[in-house]
């Protein structure tokens, strides 16, 4: 800090601030179902005060992007990540930093004594710094959460497109979840690729696990069916639930002569009949 008061206070009464802070944190934590131990909190707060003391000695103002704050930033990012993994909310994570204000300001007050102007000045500086650090923590928290979501999305995409060989020349693709353009693309590609690999004549698209079928989803299904037909394979759509049949008719979607069946068993029976009859012709 410019006048060094903050770093002086931290150096002089760092231990005291840290003790009060850890106590506040522990009190606040008691409501958070013991996801983090008091010892861990104690250790984290001590580490943070240590880093803050070092940083405030060298750094100017509250520009936390400065290289002096690099260690603190990394430390906070680490805290955010572990909080995400422990299932804390963003509020709880941010309050880790913000709860430092109370003991810190108390220490500043002791230092400033009767000088109100100096106190106001220092409180403002400390607030600016702690707010910036708090925001950084939340940002890191958000990013960790987004990473988790992205990873899950990728995993779901892989999980949701298994192409199953049901019989000689018959493939089935059980679709689960809402169909959007990106997923349809993946489904279509993996199914068509499998058709080429196995030389299957019939593919059954099972939509039992598709919660709703609107015009867009129907269009995606039709695209898949058309692509299959262009490659010389037949397609049967199965698992059409009564509500979905009603929706399709009400929406006026024309399924263009696509064979549909109520369940996979019926579709398989039909597929067997079709491949069977073609076998007889040989």
């Amino acid at each position, binding site marked *: 800090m410019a006048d060094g008061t903050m770093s002086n206070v931290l150096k002089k009464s760092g231990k005291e601030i840290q003790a009060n802070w850890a106590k506040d944190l522990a009190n606040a934590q008691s409501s958070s179902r013991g996801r983090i131990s008091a010892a861990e909190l104690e250790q984290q707060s001590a580490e943070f005060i240590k880093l803050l003391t070092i940083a405030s000695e060298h750094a100017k103002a509250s520009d936390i992007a400065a290289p002096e704050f690099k260690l603190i930033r990394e430390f906070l990012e680490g805290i955010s990540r572990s909080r995400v993994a422990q299932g804390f909310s963003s509020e709880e994570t941010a309050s880790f930093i913000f709860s430092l204000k109370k003991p810190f300001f108390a220490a500043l007050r002791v230092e400033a004594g009767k000088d109100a102007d100096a106190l106001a000045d220092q409180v403002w500086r400390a607030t600016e710094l702690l707010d910036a650090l708090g925001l950084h923590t939340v940002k890191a928290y958000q990013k960790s959460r987004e990473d988790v979501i992205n990873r899950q999305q990728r995993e779901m995409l892989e999980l949701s497109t298994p192409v199953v060989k049901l019989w000689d020349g018959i493939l089935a693709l059980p679709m689960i979840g809402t169909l959007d353009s990106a997923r349809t*693309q993946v489904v*279509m*590609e993996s199914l*068509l*690729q499998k*058709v*080429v690999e196995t*030389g299957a*004549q019939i593919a059954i698209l099972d939509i039992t696990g598709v919660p709703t079928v609107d015009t867009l989803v129907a269009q995606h299904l039709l*695209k898949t069916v*058309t*692509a*299959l*037909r*262009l*490659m*010389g*394979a037949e397609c049967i759509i199965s698992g059409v639930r009564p509500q979905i049949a009603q929706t399709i008719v009400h929406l006026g979607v024309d399924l263009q002569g696509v064979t549909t069946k109520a369940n996979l068993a019926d579709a398989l029976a039909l597929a067997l009949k079709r491949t069977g009859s*073609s076998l007889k*012709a*040989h």
Partner: protein
Amino acid sequence: MEKIPILRMGEFLLVTIQIDMHDQLALKLQDDLSNAIQKNASKGVLIDISSLEMVDSFIGRMVADISGMGKILGAETILVGMQPAVAITLVELGLSLPGVATALDVERGMALLRRKIDADGADDFNR
């Protein structure tokens, strides 16, 4: 000038497209094929596009047109071996090629062609 060969196999014609088609080549194929059907009085045409890896809307339409012309000249036309990427591209372009018969590979295409012609042949016999 490069040319796509048209092979005669009895009453069928076999066309294998093994190079990337460009517009001029497609037009020439259209011309050659319709002449060949006429000359050989072919009953069926098999177009193998398993080596074709790229299509645009023009080539897509050309393939549909060739199939239509074959039909008018009295030859069943079957498109075999379309690659997944090509199929997806055509669908995304809105070319679903209605009325074009397709098969997975040449063997299946030949079987299908024979079945179709046998069905037609029965009509001839009754006459």
